[in-house]
C-alpha cells in the first residue's frame, strides 16, 4: 500500500502499538534546553531512574541567557535564569550528556545549533522540549516539540507515547516573487489554514517552490508550520540536504554515510499515497506579509489595509495592538526592530537583511538589535563583514540566543512599544507585557527599521540608497 513520507517515518520507529491512535515511538535523538528540562531531571532523580541512552541527547543553553557579552555566569543578574543554566550543566555532567554551554563556541539557539553541527539527519525521529522542533523536518526528520513530562519519559525510556497524525500535503509551485522568502510562504500558509488549521496533521511541503528553496529556507518553513498547529512538518530530503549534511561534524561519514544515503532515497511519499488533506498555494499570490494581530494567522500583505474584524477575537487583537480596521499596514510606525529567532537568524537571513541595510541607517527613535542564531552564525557573519553593515546602520550586534523572541532574558520591549520582528509569535505579552509584535521576514524588519514604519521591502530594493 502506498505510504506518505510521514507514515514511513512513523512505521520505521514503532516499538509497540498502544491503541488505535497511539504507538510507542522510538526517539533517535533528543535535544534539551535549560528552561524546560530541570523538572524532567528532578523527576528522574526522585524515581532513581538512569538515562537510558546518554549519547542520544544534546543540551544547549539558549532561552534565558543575556545576549550582551559576559565572561562568567556570575555576571548574569537574573538569579532564576542563572540557576537554570547551572542546573543544566550539573544534570548533563551527572548523566554524561553532551552540553553546549554558554561559553562553548557552538552555543546558540538549539534549532540553529543542531542542524549546523550535523545532528539532524533524514529518517530520524527527533524530540525536544520546544515547540519549534518541527524545524528539522527540513532534513526529512520527523521532529516535534514535547513537554517536560515527555522529556523525562524520553530520558528514561528513549521512547514516547505518540498520537499518530493525519498526513496533509501542502503543494506550492512557482517562482517566489521578488522581495519574498520562506517566511512569507509559511505566513501565507498559516494565514490560509488558520492557527489551528493543521492541528492533528503532519504537514508535508512539496512542489517546485520547495524544491528550489535552500536548506536554510526550508528550515524557516518547517519551523513555523507549528503556528498552524502542525505537530510535524516535513520536506522529502533531496541532494541539497545530502550535500548540506556532508562534512558537518556530527553527520555520518564514510561507509556509514554510503549506507545511509541508499536508505534515504526512499524517504519520499509514494506517488499514489493518500493525504487526508491537500492545500495548494500559488506563489504568484504571495507578497511580503506582516501580522496585524496577536495570532500568527492574523497577517496581510504589506500593501493591504487592516481587515475588518471577523468576530470578538479579531477585535480584541486590534485593541491590544492599538490599531484600527482599514488602516494601511505601511502606515504603522515602530519603536523597535528585532532580527533573530530559530525561524530567521541563520546566515542567509542575516545576508538578506544586511543587503537592505547596506548604506542606510535606522530611523530616529527606533531601537534595533540583531541576535545571530548561533555563535557560529555570528562568526560567519563577521567574516563576511555583515556585522559592520548592521553596526553602521545602527543595529546593536549581539551574542547568540532566543533573546527577544520570547523575552525570557533582559531583551524585553516595554508596554505599548511596537516591534517589527523576524520571529514566530505575536502573542499578547510575548515580547514584554503590553508589547506589540508584528511578524515579518528579516528583510522586512530591516526595511521597517530604516524607514521607522512598516514598509514594503520591494520599494527599498528598487531605490538606490
Amino acid at each position, binding site marked *: 500500500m502506498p505510504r506518505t513520507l510521514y507514515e514511513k517515518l512513523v512505521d*520505521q520507529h514503532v*516499538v*509497540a502499538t*498502544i*491503541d488505535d*491512535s*497511539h504507538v*510507542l515511538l*522510538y526517539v533517535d535523538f533528543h535535544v534539551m534546553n535549560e*528552561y*524546560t528540562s*530541570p*523538572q524532567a531531571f528532578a523527576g528522574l532523580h526522585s524515581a532513581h*531512574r538512569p538515562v*537510558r*541512552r546518554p*549519547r*542520544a541527547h544534546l543540551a544547549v543553553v539558549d532561552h534565558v541567557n543575556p545576549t550582551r557579552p559576559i565572561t562568567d555566569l556570575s555576571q548574569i543578574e537574573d538569579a*532564576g*535564569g542563572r*540557576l*537554570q543554566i547551572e542546573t543544566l550543566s550539573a544534570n548533563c555532567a551527572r548523566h554524561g550528556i553532551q552540553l553546549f554551554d554558554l561559553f562553548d563556541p557552538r552555543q546558540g539557539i538549539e534549532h540553529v545549533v543542531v542542524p549546523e553541527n550535523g545532528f539532524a*539527519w533524514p*529518517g*530520524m525521529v527527533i524530540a525536544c522540549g*520546544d*515547540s519549534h522542533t518541527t524545524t528539522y523536518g527540513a532534513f526529512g526528520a520527523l521532529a516535534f*516539540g*514535547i*513537554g517536560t*513530562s*515527555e522529556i*523525562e*519519559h524520553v530520558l*528514561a525510556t*528513549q*521512547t514516547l507515547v505518540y*498520537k499518530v497524525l493525519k498526513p496533509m500535503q501542502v503543494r506550492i509551485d512557482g517562482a517566489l516573487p521578488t522581495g519574498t522568502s520562506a517566511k512569507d510562504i509559511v505566513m501565507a500558509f498559516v494565514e490560509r489554514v488558520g*492557527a*489551528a488549521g493543521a*492541528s492533528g496533521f503532519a504537514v508535508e511541503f512539496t512542489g517546485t517552490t520547495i524544491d528550489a528553496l535552500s536548506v536554510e529556507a526550508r528550515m524557516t518553513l518547517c519551523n513555523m508550520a507549528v503556528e498552524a*498547529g502542525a*505537530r510535524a512538518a516535513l520536506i522529502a530530503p533531496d541532494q541539497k540536504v545530502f550535500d548540506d549534511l556532508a562534512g558537518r561534524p*556530527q553527520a*555520518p561519514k564514510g561507509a*556509514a*554515510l554510503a*549506507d545511509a544515503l541508499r*536508505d534515504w532515497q526512499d524517504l519520499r511519499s509514494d506517488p499514489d499515497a493518500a493525504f487526508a488533506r491537500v492545500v495548494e498555494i500559488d506563489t504568484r499570490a504571495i507578497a511580503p506579509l506582516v501580522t496585524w494581530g496577536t495570532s500568527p494567522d492574523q497577517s496581510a500583505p504589506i500593501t493591504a489595509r487592516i481587515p475588518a474584524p471577523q468576530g*470578538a*477575537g479579531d477585535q*480584541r487583537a486590534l485593541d491590544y495592538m492599538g490599531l484600527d480596521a482599514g488602516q494601511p499596514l505601511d502606515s504603522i510606525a515602530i519603536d523597535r526592530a528585532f532580527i533573530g529567532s530559530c525561524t530567521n537568524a541563520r546566515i542567509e537571513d542575516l545576508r538578506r537583511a544586511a543587503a537592505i541595510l547596506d548604506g542606510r541607517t535606522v530611523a530616529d527613535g527606533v531601537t534595533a538589535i540583531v541576535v545571530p542564531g548561533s555563535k557560529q552564525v555570528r562568526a560567519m557573519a563577521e567574516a563576511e563583514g555583515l556585522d559592520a553593515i548592521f553596526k553602521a546602520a545602527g543595529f546593536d550586534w549581539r551574542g547568540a540566543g532566543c533573546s527577544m523572541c*520570547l523575552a*525570557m532574558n533582559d531583551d524585553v520591549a516595554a*508596554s505599548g512599544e511596537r516591534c517589527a520582528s523576524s520571529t514566530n*509569535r505575536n*502573542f*499578547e*505579552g510575548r515580547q514584554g*507585557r503590553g508589547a506589540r509584535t508584528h511578524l515579518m521576514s528579516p528583510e522586512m524588519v530591516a526595511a521597517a527599521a530604516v524607514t521607522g514604519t512598516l514598509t514594503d521591502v520591494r520599494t527599498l530594493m528598487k531605490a538606490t540608497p
Partner: protein
Amino acid sequence: MTPFTTVTGVAAALPTPNIDTDVIMPKQFLKRIDRAGLAIGAFHDLRFDTDGQTRPDFVLNRAPYNQAKFLICGDNFGCGSSREYAVWGLQQLGIRAIIAPSISGIFFGNCEKNGLLAITLPPGDVDLLMAHADTPRTALMTIDLDAQTITAGPLRIGFDIPAARKALLLSGADHIQQTLDRAATITEFEAKQAATRHWLWARG
C-alpha cells in the same frame, strides 16, 4: 499524579480562541527548576493589572468563577510554546479539566501527563456548556470520567477518550513506569535498528 474520577465544580467560560501558553503562563514565571509557586502566574496578565491589582473584568476574578475547577474554552486552547509550566500553573489554580472544540497538541499531551483532563467536543456542545457556565446559577458541573459524561443541570453530554488514556487518568499511574514495563520490547527494537540502520548508532 492525582487520579481523576468524578469531579464536581464551577465551570468558567473563556470563549476567546487561540489562548496561548504565553498568556496562560507568562515568561517571568518560567525561571525555576521546580514545579511550585505557579498559581500566581496562571493567566497573570489577565488576572492582575500592571500594579498587581486584581482585574474585575476577568472571569476568574469574579465569584463563583474564582472557585472554578473547569474551563470551557474557545478553539485551539493552549497553542504556542511547549512550556508545561502552563499546565502546572492551571492545576495549582485549582483547574481539573479543560473543555474546548480543539486543544493544541503539545498542551494536550502535557495535560494528560499531569492528570489535567482535556476534553474536545463538537463546537455545538461547547457552546451549550459555555451558555451554562456564563450564568452563575447553572455553572456547577460534574465530570464523570468513568462514565465519560459532563452533567450540568439537566444537560448531559458524552465525550470520547481513548481507553489507554482513560485508564491512566483514572488510576493516576506513573506513565514512565508503564513504558519501562516494556523495556524488553524497546531493547529488541534497538537491536533491530542497530542492525538495519547502523548509522543511527554511530554515536553510541
